[in-house]
């Protein structure tokens, strides 16, 4: 499928297990996908489904248990420490919580300049060059110049998240993992940040892996969407397709549970019983089977097949599209 051009990011059979007292926690379990240059892949799922671990494992903030991550055709998992540091200027991350992810003792300009010095793009003594670059990046993300010497605690959530974005952008990366960048923000501020991220993507040709639990945000931003459940991919397809024709029973339940801001909107809503089971030493078979209304005996054992139900639309289910 990647004959015509090398995708910016290609992930093959990526696994990340954590050792716990009770056994192995399968946080990311055999996930494969690719993102073309300049596109956005939305990753959705509920808390504990492994979506943040996936983002971090791709950047090797967690070492993968097995599997490969190719960035512009190069195998990131085989990089040496030094080569990885170098690669990080092309692969950045924006964190979820703008209150916890900024160093409270660094000013806005120090925070933005830090990666530039670490990566050796600027000499720490080149005050003027750094200041110029910081001003440029602040303009890009819509931070007023008068804030250059303020500390994070003086700023509201929206401005703090702009600092987080500016810090990621200062190295001029090609690929950014966005880990719930707007979920801590109020809706009106959230909309400002989403517009900003869209503009930056177009201007700079960025590729995003956008992790969120907010379905309307993911639909708005993504080209493709991957739905995760307990560490595994359950459905992958083009964004509009997912909302038009959700084929995995979990996706169907997830979409139907979203409260729609229209009093006249009526649809069949699927009430899922129970909650996420533990990803520690999971039983074989489909991990959703216990809560699935269509589950039969074969769902509780063996491999769950990944079927292509329409071109580019993959579903990990024995009965995709059943309604």
């Amino acid at each position, binding site marked *: 499928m990647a004959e015509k051009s090398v995708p910016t990011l290609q992930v093959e059979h990526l696994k990340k297990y954590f050792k716990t007292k009770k056994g192995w926690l399968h946080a990311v379990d055999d996930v494969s996908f690719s993102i073309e240059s300049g596109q956005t892949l939305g990753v959705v799922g*509920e808390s504990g489904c492994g979506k943040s671990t996936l983002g971090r494992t791709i950047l090797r903030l967690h070492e993968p248990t097995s599997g490969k991550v190719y960035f512009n055709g190069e195998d990131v998992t085989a990089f040496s420490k030094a080569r990885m540091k170098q690669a990080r200027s092309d692969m950045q991350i924006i964190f979820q919580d703008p209150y916890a992810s900024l160093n409270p003792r660094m000013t806005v300009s120090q925070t933005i300049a830090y990666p530039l010095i670490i990566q050796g793009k600027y000499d720490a003594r080149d005050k003027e060059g750094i200041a110029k670059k910081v001003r440029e990046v602040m303009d890009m993300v819509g931070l007023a110049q008068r804030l250059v010497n303020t500390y994070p605690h003086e700023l509201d959530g929206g401005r703090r998240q702009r600092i987080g974005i500016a810090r990621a952008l200062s190295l001029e990366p090609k690929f950014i993992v966005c880990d719930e960048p707007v979920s801590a923000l*109020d*809706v*009106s*501020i959230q909309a400002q940040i*989403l517009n900003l991220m869209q503009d930056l993507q177009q201007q700079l040709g960025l590729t995003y892996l956008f992790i969120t639990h907010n379905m309307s*945000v993911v*639909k708005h931003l993504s080209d493709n969407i991957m739905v995760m459940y307990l560490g595994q991919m359950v459905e992958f397809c083009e964004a509009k397709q997912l909302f038009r024709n959700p084929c995995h029973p979990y996706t169907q339940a997830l979409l139907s549970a979203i409260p*729609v801001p229209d009093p006249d909107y009526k649809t069949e809503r699927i009430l899922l019983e129970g909650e996420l089971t533990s990803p520690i030493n999971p039983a074989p078979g489909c991990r959703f089977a216990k809560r699935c209304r269509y589950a039969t005996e074969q769902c509780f054992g063996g491999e769950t097949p990944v079927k292509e139900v329409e071109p580019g639309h993959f579903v990990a289910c024995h009965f995709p599209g059943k309604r």
Partner: protein
Amino acid sequence: MADNDNILEIRDLKIVYKTQEGVVEALNGASLSLKRGQTLGLVGETGAGKTTLARGIMGLIPKPPGQVVGGEIFFNGTDLLKASEHDMRKVRGAQISMIFQDPMTSLNPVMTVGEQIEEVLRAHGRSVKEAVEGAHEMLEMVGIPKERAEEYPHQFSGGMKQRIIIAIALACNPEFLIADEPTTALDVTIQYQVLVMMQKLKEQFNTSMLMITHDLGIVAQNCDYVAIMYAGQVVEYGALREIFKDPRHPYTLGLFGSIPSLSEDTDRLTPIEGMPPDPTRLPTGCPFHPRCQYATEACAQWKSEAYPVGGEHTVRCLRFQPAEKREEA
């Protein structure tokens, strides 16, 4: 005095917090009413005063720094602001109950969940035996087997903890329930489970409810009336359809423009420009005017008040001032 159909009527409530940085005007003349058996959705962003309003009704404003400086809160026709602390203790939990936002921190970690439900019942005069039976009954009602009454909060998942908090709030069968962002900390499928359960219990007991949320989707699917708050005021109030089908206040319009739609494809969102005001230094006149695209010079001078625009719908915006009032001025 107050309308008999209304279980709750708040008039011109003003609450301030006196801090080192200055006086925070958390509520700035908020008014609203709630009919018996109905659910009112209270919508607004961080700092709009939603939680202060809820705490004001419960008489739980921390003093100092908080202070109620004006207004009336009628509950079943009596002004709660004039009630003694002794009387308020009888009201709280028995007649008015509150579900707090964060299920992870609002349960006592060193008490079994059964004991935490029993505590409410005991405080309102039930015997030990009645309280234990009542706690078991409540657990079953929110879908938790009564055998688990002996367990501690950490043994439950987030959705289950929120069910326990709901059980505590409903234990004395209150007439009026305040739910402060009851599902914000939960995942969407669990949120749906909890909302369905709350709706069922509400119908079963004919409870009136004030649902505080920032999610317009939850309001559309669960409420009968809506109050939109901004900078300590209710800027728009009306029946569900009046607000969702015919929003008038520029702030309400801005909120609707900020949410990405699931049914339509939009390329760009139309957010509200700027930031919410600093509550220690509110703008003069209409607090929204510095961010409002329709603002005129008159907005900064205007003595903010709500105007009826048909039905039960009221809007706190100068653009909807009736013509006769305009001539007076």
